[in-house]
Each structure stands twice: as structure tokens, then as C-alpha cells.
């Protein structure tokens, strides 16, 4: 593993992107910061710009309008980075697969920009905060 990927394992800074979510996963992500789960003690921090992020937390199904935005965010994120797909929607569009405005799943959108993107899937609807933490830790430990 290169020193670059090693460096992002410790206290990853994450940028959250919503590409057409119902907000449940987004709220569970915010719950991670609340006192019960408090991920800041692991050094995980939410940042205001993709340029400062080591990881992207993507929620939502990948709507046509948001996909354009997501590709741009991914380009701007400093590499190497890990893309975490939080929830059933980005992992596979789930119940919205027949929607006319849906161009997901999100891994296809990301791979249009970077076929070698590092993508981790945390399914659930929404995944519980414990599941999100577990998914993030698991992914980082095998990097």
C-alpha cells in the first residue's frame, strides 16, 4: 500500500454529497456527529469542500441533474480518495430503479470519470449509524 493511501486511513476527512436522497441516510450521517456516536473521537471530520476530503459519503439514488454535479465533485476531490456509497439507493437504486429521472447506480456514475475509483458499499435503508461506522472502518482497514 502506498504512503498516500496509508495517510488517508488515519482520521479521514469526509465530504458529504446528496445525489437524490430522501434524507434518512443524510440524517443518520449527522447522527454520527451527535453525542451518542460521536465519530469525531476517531478523527473523522466533515469538511466543506471536496478538495479537502479523503473520502466522499454519497447518499441518494443518482438523479439525472445531480449526476452532473457528482462527477464534478469527484474530479475535484483530492486523490487518493475512497467513495462510500451510503444506503441502498447509491448501491443499486433500490426501489427507484424504474424512475425516469434516475441515472444511477452511483458506482456507474463515478466510474465514468474514473474506472479505477475505490468504492465501498454500505447498504441499508437507512444503514444504522453503527453500520456506517463499521463499513467505513472495514473499508479503510483493507486499503
Amino acid at each position: 500500500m502506498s504512503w498516500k493511501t496509508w495517510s488517508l486511513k488515519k482520521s479521514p476527512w469526509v465530504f458529504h454529497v446528496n445525489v437524490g436522497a430522501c434524507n434518512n441516510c443524510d440524517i443518520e450521517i449527522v447522527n454520527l456527529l451527535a453525542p451518542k456516536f460521536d465519530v469525531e473521537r476517531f478523527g473523522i471530520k466533515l469538511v466543506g469542500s471536496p478538495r479537502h476530503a479523503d473520502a466522499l459519503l454519497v447518499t441518494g439514488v443518482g438523479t439525472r441533474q445531480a449526476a452532473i454535479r457528482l462527477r464534478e465533485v469527484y474530479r475535484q476531490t483530492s486523490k487518493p480518495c475512497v467513495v462510500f456509497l451510503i444506503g441502498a439507493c447509491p448501491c443499486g437504486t433500490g426501489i427507484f430503479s424504474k424512475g425516469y429521472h434516475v441515472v444511477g447506480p452511483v458506482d456507474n456514475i463515478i466510474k465514468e470519470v474514473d474506472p479505477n475509483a475505490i468504492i465501498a458499499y454500505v447498504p441499508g435503508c437507512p444503514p444504522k449509524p453503527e453500520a456506517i461506522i463499521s463499513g467505513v472502518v472495514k473499508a479503510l482497514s483493507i486499503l
Partner: protein
Amino acid sequence: MNQEELNNRLSKIKDKLLAFEQPLDDRIIISCESEKAYALNQFLFEDIRARFVIITGIDADDCFELLYHYSYDQTGCVITIKAIVRDRQQPQVESITPLLPAAEWIERELHDVLGIGFKNHPNLKRLILADDWPEGVYPLRKEVKK
């Protein structure tokens, strides 16, 4: 006013209507030609003082239907104006946004997804379809499959 008074007030405009249905005590549907829709909306909003809820647009094969839903909160009655838009090639109806700012978004949405033209709408720009969604493709029309 109570439900009985409301029923009386509504029955006074029956001559403007194609049909008056009351599937439940507190659910009323009044059907009309699309040209009469504005006047009926004005009647419900200004005279009856009902609250605008939303507009449902339906592709009903040989015509379009615009259902203007109102809630009369004093009795919990939902009153729906069912306006029939017969021209399928160039469906047009008078916008109610100048009367009710609340209708601005839904008329823009119906313009996007059903291709209905709203005359005199102050801001008929694209609202919910993506910037790169093709013009002239109306996802809620029957002929459009995914």
C-alpha cells in the same frame, strides 16, 4: 360555514359544471371544461375561502385532466375541480398563479412533465427536470415509457 352550507353554496354553481360528485360526505369533485377552471378556482379561493392544496395532472387518453385540489379546513372537506383539457395537441389553460402564488411551482412542474401550457404564468421556466432533459419529452404522458 358547516358542511351543509358548503354543499348549498357549491350547488349554486352547478350550471357551470359538467358533473358534481360526492363520493364521501367530505369529498366533493366538481368537473368542468378547462375554460371554466379559472373562474371556479377564483370562486373556491376568494368566495368559499378554501385552501389550495395542489394540482394533479393526468393523461386520460383522449384528454388531459387537471385536478385542482382544495381543502375547506373548517369542515375538513376536500373539494376538487376536475378540469378537462380536450386539445391534446396544444393543451392550454389559464394560469391561476396570478390569483394564487401558491400555484406557481406546480404549474411549472406540470408544464415540465405533462407539457401543459399555462397562459399568463409569470415564470414558466423549467422546475424539476434536469437541465439536459430533452425538450418535448413529457414523462407523465402515456406514450412515454422509460
